[in-house]
């Protein structure tokens, strides 16, 4: 909600006029000051359309609330109702059909100081924009939605809308409608709007009252105004005179109290309930989001200073790109191992590295792999058909990937899981058992493997890998991961010389 001064404005320029409904000149003057000062009038609306009454009633609410014009925003979509902001001297935006609410959502989140109105017809709000309407209600974004419900698409010539009553005729329902209509107010109430009121174009002062209450409600508010489209709806449904149609609205509007105390049969056919139908204030989206900002900032403050830089000696030059594949099954931490490996090679050893991994259904099946290409030059092709260095932590991964080991390449397998190795000269180490029994945590098997790889392959230096492992270690696990890394090194060094690559 924008700033409210609470002081209704005084109008000393009131000319001595009375309008057709007998309103006083003061009312006219209070309306006129909110209309665009240059030649936007007359409106595009048909003579007698309820939209003029509704527009007047809304600006009187703005006036009575004492809102500053500069702090008021009107957003609209497409349709006769959507033209309203054109005439109003506020910040105004006219967007695509149905999208006024999401556009207004962006405005409100970018500048919560603005009091944001969204004016929509029934087609705009509940057909093409229906999804946006219910989600804004659910989120309780502090927008004031005014849904002008005239049962029809007026601007395009009278096609049936989601609120056209069953049996009513429309240009696209020449035999009468067969689709049950939405009850807009009940729809948004069910969806979570925190303030919902309904009235009609006949009850102009009620519109003003409900719009004011909507603005004062800190959340998503809906004022549904039943209106007359005599031109396209009335003409096809025996209510072609605007007065007749407005009178029909008056006669079919049943006050909530009376509505609740009567049976449907006691009400005229087509009757609808009017009044404040729902009011249950709760914190709005921006208020809750501001708490998130607070929390996020506090969390940021707690993380403290980053650790001191680690210097790693410059590695030997690399003539050709080296391809590394770390494979196993999901949950063995191989993706992370690949990330650590790539980070060690690039950030610490100063080379180029590109890491990729399996995604989607492939990644959810048994096998998981993470590939790293390392080179001294920019990596033009981040994939490989054959690998210089490979880790296989399951039998399945070994069966699938070991055939892609380059001749003379290095293969490390976890001897707990890989019992049959299709390749000669693989290095087998009980990586998982070391993690479980020596280090004390099975999840560190990937780090044990990295320690072993630092011994078995010169691609990435031990110092670089150690530094990258520590970078990735969650708070308080540095010791555990260092121990896992060291155990991996120890195990690899203990391999018989014949089983170690030259």
């Amino acid at each position, binding site marked *: 909600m924008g700033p409210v001064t609470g002081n209704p404005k005084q109008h000393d320029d009131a000319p001595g006029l009375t309008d057709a409904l007998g309103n006083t000149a003061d009312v006219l003057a209070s309306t006129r000051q909110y209309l*665009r000062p240059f030649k936007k009038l007359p409106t595009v609306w048909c003579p007698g359309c309820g939209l003029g009454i509704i527009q007047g009633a809304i600006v009187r609410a703005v006036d009575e609330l004492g809102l500053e*014009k*500069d*702090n008021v925003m009107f957003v609209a979509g497409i349709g006769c109702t959507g033209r309203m*902001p*054109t005439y109003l001297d*506020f*910040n*105004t*935006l*006219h*967007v*695509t059909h149905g*999208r006024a609410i*999401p*556009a207004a*959502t*962006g405005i409100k989140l*970018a*500048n919560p100081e*603005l009091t944001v109105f969204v004016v929509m017809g029934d087609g705009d709000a509940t057909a093409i924009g229906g*999804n*946006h309407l219910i*989600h804004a209600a659910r989120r309780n974004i502090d927008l004031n939605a005014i849904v002008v419900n005239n049962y029809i698409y007026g601007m395009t010539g009278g096609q049936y809308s989601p609120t056209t009553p069953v049996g009513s005729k429309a240009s696209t329902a020449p035999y009468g409608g067969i689709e049950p209509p939405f009850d807009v107010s009940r729809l948004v109430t069910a969806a979570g709007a925190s303030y919902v009121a309904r009235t009609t174009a006949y009850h102009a002062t009620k519109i003003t009252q409900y719009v004011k209450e909507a603005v004062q409600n800190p959340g998503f508010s809906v004022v549904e105004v039943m209106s007359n489209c005599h031109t396209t709806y009335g003409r096809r449904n025996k209510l072609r005179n605007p007065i007749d149609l407005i009178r029909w609205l008056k006669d079919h509007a049943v006050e909530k109290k009376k509505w609740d105390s009567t049976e449907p049969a006691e009400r005229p056919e087509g009757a609808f309930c009017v009044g404040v139908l729902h009011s249950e204030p709760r914190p709005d989206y*921006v208020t809750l*989001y501001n708490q998130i900002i607070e929390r*996020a*900032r506090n969390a940021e403050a707690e993380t403290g200073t*980053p650790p001191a*830089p*680690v210097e790693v000696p*410059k590695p030997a030059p690399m003539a050709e790109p080296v391809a590394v594949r770390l494979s196993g099954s999901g949950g063995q*931490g191989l993706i*992370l191992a690949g*990330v650590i490996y*790539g*980070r060690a090679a*690039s*950030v610490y050893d*100063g080379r*180029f*590295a*590109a890491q*990729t991994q399996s*995604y989607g*259904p492939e990644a959810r099946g048994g096998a998981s792999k993470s590939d790293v290409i390392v080179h*001294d*030059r*920019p990596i*033009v*092709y*981040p*994939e490989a058909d054959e690998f210089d260095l490979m880790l296989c932590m399951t039998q399945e991964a070994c069966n699938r990937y070991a055939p892609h080991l380059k001749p003379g390449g290095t293969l490390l397998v976890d001897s707990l899981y890989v019992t049959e190795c299709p390749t000669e000269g693989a290095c087998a180490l009980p990586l998982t058992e070391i993690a479980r029994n020596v280090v004390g945590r099975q*999840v560190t098997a*990937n*780090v044990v493997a990295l320690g072993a790889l630092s011994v078995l392959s010169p691609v990435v230096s031990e110092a670089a890998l150690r530094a990258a492992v520590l*970078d*990735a270690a*969650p708070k308080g696990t540095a010791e555990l991961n260092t121990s*896992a890394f060291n155990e991996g090194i120890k195990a690899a060094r203990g391999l018989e010389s014949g089983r170690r690559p030259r």
Partner: protein
Amino acid sequence: MPSSSSRRRRKPPAPDPTQDRGRRFDAGGNATETAAQRESAGQRSAESTSIFVQGNAACARGALAAGLRFFAGYPITPSTEIAEIISEELPKRGGRFIQMEDEIASMAAIIGASMAGAKSMTATSGPGFSLMVENIGLAAMLEAPCVIVNVQRGGPSTGLPTKTHQADVMQARWGSHGDYPIIVLTAASVQDAFDLTITSFNLAEKYRTPVVLLLEEATGHMREKIEIPPPEAIALFERTAPSVPPGEYLPFDDRFGDVPPFAAYGTGYRYHATGLTHNRTGFPTEAFEEIDELLRRHARKISEDIAELRLVEHYKMDDAEIALVAYGSSARAAKGAVDLARAEGLKLGMIRLVILWPFPTAVIREAAAQAKHLIVPELNMGQMVREVERAASGHARVHSMTKVTSELWAPHEIVEKARALLGVNGGA
């Protein structure tokens, strides 16, 4: 070991000035010196941060570095990491994130936020981009600065969510109905994803336009090392504010050039903006000359004649007889192909299109005057090659290389094509 974020400030290792680590772009999008050149000139101080991240993460960090204030999005593979990172990082900087009900709403929301003055962005992939195109037209019409990232996957329809393609390059240009200009950039590396996100924001702000940044699943999900310069070393362009008082302000005023000064809603400049064709006052018009004036100004504003919108990288083009015209991941392979071919004595060069739209016609025309053949490798059925043909207008033979298996181009495949054109057999 469970994962945790890992980032560290450190002195970068001694640089090798012969290595090109990708071009960088200044505030206006001009290609400046390479990162390697800057390093060798000592401009990359201990202040720069090296991180090893995915392209999507680099994009998110680029957006934050560019001053992002609002993000609206809807989850979709392979772009989701961008939204995830921003949802965590943006509130720390006082900005706001929202997950909308769909991509239509996301696009509408970033337009609204942009009109209220916030640097705004969304990220998606093909199916979501298809939903966004409606309001990309609105952003063009409202001249609302915003950035739309499309991490391309295989299509059409749901296609291949986790596989890479480059098949949205035409949709990015022509997706919405009507005649409207748009800027489209595309990244070849993870460093690019960071740099070009910043460039996208700068161009959006400078030209009051939606900018589409095309990544690919391959670059979005790949991890590489990137250098993040300290904030003071990143040049940012902010939209031009009005110089006139509110009473005299016209939202689509062309008196100050083709890009009208921008006033955010809520700053005292009350005005009307609409997706309807409008005149300089912002109100709808159907006057012939005003319609013409608006659409022609839009077209002039983002025209290929603007020199700084010719964002391309020339690689070994000086004496090239065959020019590879490539973009995105295919440009990496093309660069590798140039080096492989040169080792065999074949004179290949590459023009990497960093900007796809407006298409740098003059650059290609020049290349066509020099080279006998232009080869255009793409991960689609041949889309940008049509533009290359148009620009070459018969001065060089243009050859399309298409691939839709969702595999990347490999350098040797491109070299083979070049050998065939030159009548050379075998090779190394």
